[in-house]
């Protein structure tokens, strides 16, 4: 589409298709096309190579709110408490393992909290990741109270003067009110263990997710107040364009991206790389 010399209706239709195929959704794609028309009129976009750069500029402008992902400048209260949340199977546990490894390499003592007391072998899975990451782990009991596990872990981290507490939570669909209440309870309980905890709550989004991703962000944000997003499985063929749709409505920084199943497959979010990759 970007090799076209003229901005005709065919070119715009092809551009719309590319945006929808990247999971931006029809409405966001439409907004982008409208902006393309505006910028073509005022000559800030030209056909040919100019179109590609022009569209990438538009996308980057939309993503400005998601770019506060100077992930390394996260405020550092001690211990810093992070809750990882999201729907089932998106990559929370794996991402937390990668993050623990990343922080371990940076120095300081991290504590991984296996607080998914619901799903079969979730605690074992998190424990294996703590070994890979080289960090300590606190394991809940299957069937136990997840909020209590998180509370105890933060108290232990304070006593042991640790730097970071990384809490894994069970996957849950955002439409299930009782399960969302459970997370709110964990959030309240953490505040009692340490004022201002949890300092961060990040929602993990799977890059293969379509338009439902917006509903996920909306509901989790409304319930908890998210402070960031992580976009996983970008090593697959899905472009993760749903985050552009999300960025239209929420100013949530994308902290990291997941690009594989290994302990090192974590990268800080780079908006230039991300928007350019949409058209690969």
């Amino acid at each position, binding site marked *: 589409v970007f090799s076209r010399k003229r901005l005709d209706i065919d070119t715009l239709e092809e551009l719309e298709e590319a945006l929808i195929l990247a999971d931006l959704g029809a409405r966001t794609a439409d907004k982008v096309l409208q902006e393309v028309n505006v910028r073509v009129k005022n000559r800030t976009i030209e056909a040919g190579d100019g179109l590609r750069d022009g569209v990438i500029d538009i996308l980057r402008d939309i993503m400005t709110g998601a770019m506060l992902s100077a992930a390394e400048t996260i405020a550092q209260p001690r211990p810093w408490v992070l809750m990882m949340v999201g729907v089932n199977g998106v990559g929370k546990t794996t991402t937390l393992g990668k993050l623990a490894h990343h922080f371990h390499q940076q120095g300081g003592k991290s504590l991984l909290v296996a607080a998914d007391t619901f799903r079969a*072998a979730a605690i074992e899975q998190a424990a294996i990741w703590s070994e890979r990451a080289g960090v300590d782990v606190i394991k809940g009991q299957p069937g136990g109270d997840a909020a209590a596990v998180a509370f105890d872990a933060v108290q232990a981290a304070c006593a042991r003067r640790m730097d970071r507490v990384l809490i894994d939570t069970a996957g849950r669909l955002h439409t299930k009110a009782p399960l969302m209440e459970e997370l709110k309870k964990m959030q309240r309980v953490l505040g009692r263990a340490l004022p201002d905890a949890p300092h961060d709550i990040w929602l993990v989004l799977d890059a293969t997710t379509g338009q439902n991703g917006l509903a996920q962000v909306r509901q989790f944000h409304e319930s908890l107040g998210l402070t960031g997003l992580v976009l996983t499985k970008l090593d697959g063929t899905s472009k993760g364009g749903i985050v552009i749709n999300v960025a239209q409505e929420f100013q949530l920084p994308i902290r990291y991206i997941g690009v594989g199943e290994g302990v090192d497959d974590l990268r800080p979010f780079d908006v230039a790389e991300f928007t350019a990759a949409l058209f690969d």
Partner: protein
Amino acid sequence: SLSAKLDGIFSQLRGRGKLTEANIKEATREIRLALLEADVNFQVVKGFVQRVREQALGQEVMRSLTPGQQVVKIVRDELTTLMGSQHTPLTMASQPPTTFLLVGLQGSGKTTSAAKLARKLQDMGRRPLLVAADVYRPAAMEQLRLLGEQIQTPVVVRQGSRDPVDICRQAFEEAPQHQADAIVIDTAGRLQIDETLMQELAEIKTATNPRYTFLVVDAMTGQEAVNVATAFNQAVSIEGVILTKLDGDARGGAALSIQAVVGKPIQFVGVGEKLDALEAFHPERMASRLLG
């Protein structure tokens, strides 16, 4: 909802009249938006809207329905036909065991669905044996082992093994001890573009000769559903799809896309995390869900 929008579009059309190009145009625009919002594949939507347009044009306005209801009926019927026409219940192999192979992307719900399928087979009077053939994911074998325990189904677990084909072979050797007449194999999640792992899957298929290979797909999957399903189908020829996490509000357009492009039916839907949450697929319910 789409029905309400379509009613609004045709509210000017009263009494006797035809559905015309002009009023169809606005309707098809709304239908297109609704289906794209539901994650139906771009090309599939294009073809679908075209067919609806052809059916709607020139139709006499029925006396029993408003024009909006009439168009909704055309859309609903077309959706149900697309999704329902190939549904068949499970049948067992003439010679036991009947083997089921579950494949798909990471996190789609394979392990959980394998246990759910085993439980369903038990309800059907069968004796399933679960096989933990995911050698990569931390605690994957333990996960299936625990699920098998929950439904009192034996599970073949080889913790030290790095060879899924060999695990499956051992499972077939072990099956008679359990008097198993069905074997349900859980495999590791993998990307359809991972050549090594797709080759491994083809080897597992060759070694196990499953009667049913099910692609497990998350209902919230977006536009790539078609490419994923096409690639898995080319690598291991799937019989059908298990669409998971339909207990949420994901519309599940991937179901329509896969059926339209790959031509394989949705065999089951996952509607929860518990092991009894696997249901037969109902095309009319899916049609309503897609219409929002």
